[in-house]
């Protein structure tokens, strides 16, 4: 008998006397009534708590803010679907590297790149979570991981209050990365410290009118 058959057989006999499954009560909150301003305020509060940098801006301010955030960087990687207008104010000295199908950057190249700029798919205000889904304006998972500084654009129209409200906006079979602040650890004395293996600096630009 194969391991699979044997395990499934064990499960079957283990459950021979089990009652039928009960109905699942889903009485938790699945919708909210927050205004756009309240959503922004809540998300900012959570992200600041996680020690992320946060600015609330208008679409026209993106190039200037991106340039300001990347002032110290020597190079930046961006996914091929990103609006390159967002990088238009970057100083000449900062090398720009595009990551695109057929011309992927190697892990070593990413390691030598100081920052990354991506967009995002949906954000959850209540938990301060930004979800990337690998769309062309967010790119492969590796590009938002290896560089030490992540500048992430969050269109205000993509913010919801509750996690259950974010679910219909996601395709789960895409590679998903949920980000809630810069990398952190609670492993020493259960106290949170920011900055381990993932990007140690996370700057979030919440953009109105996008």
């Amino acid at each position, binding site marked *: 008998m194969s*391991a699979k058959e044997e395990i499934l057989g064990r499960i079957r*006999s283990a459950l021979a006397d089990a009652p039928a499954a009960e109905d*699942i009560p889903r009485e938790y*909150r699945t919708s909210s009534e927050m205004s756009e301003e309240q959503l922004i305020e809540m998300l900012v509060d959570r992200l600041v708590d996680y020690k992320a940098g946060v600015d609330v801006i208008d679409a026209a301010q993106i190039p200037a803010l991106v340039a300001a955030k990347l002032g110290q960087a020597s190079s930046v990687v961006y996914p091929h679907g990103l609006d390159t207008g967002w990088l238009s104010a970057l100083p000449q000295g900062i090398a720009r590297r595009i990551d695109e*199908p057929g011309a992927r950057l190697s892990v070593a190249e990413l390691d030598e790149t100081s920052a990354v700029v991506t967009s995002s798919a949906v954000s959850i205000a209540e938990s301060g979570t930004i979800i990337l889904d690998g769309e062309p304006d967010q790119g*492969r998972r590796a590009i938002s*991981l290896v560089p030490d500084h992540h500048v992430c654009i969050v269109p205000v129209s993509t913010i919801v209050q509750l996690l259950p409200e974010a679910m219909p906006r996601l395709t789960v079979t895409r590679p998903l990365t*949920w980000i809630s602040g810069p990398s952190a*650890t609670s492993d020493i004395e259960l106290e949170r410290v920011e900055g381990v293996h993932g990007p140690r600096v996370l700057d979030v630009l919440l953009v109105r009118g996008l």
Partner: protein
Amino acid sequence: MPAPGMGNLFEQEPFPQAAHRELGNTQMRKNLRHATHTIRDKRLRVVGELPDWEQLRDAGSAIKNSSMINLEERLLEFEKNFTARGGVVHWARDADEANKIVTDLIKETGSTEVVKVKSMATQEIGLNEHLETQGIEAFETDLAELIVQLGHDKPSHILVPAIHKNRTEVRDIFLKEMPVVDPDLTDEPARLAEAARKHLRKKFLAAKVAISGANFALADTGTLGVVESEGNGRMCLTLPETLITVMGIEKVLPKWEDIEVFMQLLPRSSTGERMNPYTSLWTGVSEDDGPQNVHIVLLDNGRSRVLADKFGRSALNCIRCSACMNVCPVYERTGGHAYGSTYPGPIGAILSPLMTGIEAEDNGSLPYASSLCGACYEACPVKINIPEILVHLRGDDVDANRGKRKIPTQMDLLMKGGSWALGKGKNIGLLEKALPLGRLAAGKSKKIKKLPGIAAGWTQSRDIPAPPNKSFRDWWSDEKESK
């Protein structure tokens, strides 16, 4: 009864004996007290923020119950969907089989090094030790696991395995064991985290094979998820060419929407955060993104045995958040090593004997490692009634031992005596006549300091005050007469 689990699931000596030794480590007790109290306060704060916390717990519990009851269907559905997306599914009856599957998969790649994301399942099967015998070096990348591995130590907590070490002890381990380390390293947690980053960076960038566990599998899409904080998980799940995940069969959830419940319950219950820094979800192979050679090993190792126990079945609902150990008065004092098994604390005290059978090694002593105060049940995000299962398992332990001895034990005699005394008012009245004898035994200090036989355990760390001159019943009837 289905086959028992093997691997690191055993208490090697009776719990009271192990606890007694661990209690002598005052530094560890201080560290644990500090850490568990920190996390309790944080957890209460973030749980209190959600007006629907109890509704989420109800949903989480019901989703898990329904998944367990239809487990065969769910696993087959998961297998079909994961396979359709380019993943390969393996089945392992027990720890040995899982270790062999993983070893063979690594050998096929030609690699002799692997990076690992913290995983309870691989801890349980003793994968690292097995790989070492096969000439494969496994590098733990979670900070706490790294501390344990570098310190040649054993994990003592399922979420923060190095919880028994404080910052100064961690610094000393790093200074002694890291090949390249700043000799001026301080014990600031931020500096220690930075040292770990430097130590592991090259490993991540060069790794060809990664091994992970999984926090959940979604049956209807074939998706796997890993919940983490540091980014070491993302490194392992994203950069290598080959990814091998070892997961217990109970981790499968029916529908992908179900994670909306568990991703609210888990982070708040485990690290006391509104959300953990990083969660990764992947479905088989994603073209052009991440590992292209993706495997999962579905592990039984005693889980079907837990499923067969209708009173203990719900122990499989555990999402490994560790809230139960953080609130447990026993765990807080003895630490995790006293439980022997990979799974310590209240959940370990039920899970280990359920997986291995109550009669295996000293696992029969684990269900007694509790005062039955119920704090664990209250904290459990999926409402596992741990105290009830503990009592059920104590019954199993007594039953398992009863047949073994011809001569009745002191406990048997005590129970018989108790049954006689408490069976009739007359009998207990008769016994109460002996109360003055107790006063005599207590002597001038009015304290009984040592009881004989197994009752000595009671007086090991406390005195018994001298009994009163007469019993309440006698006093009552005297009062009535005098009126």
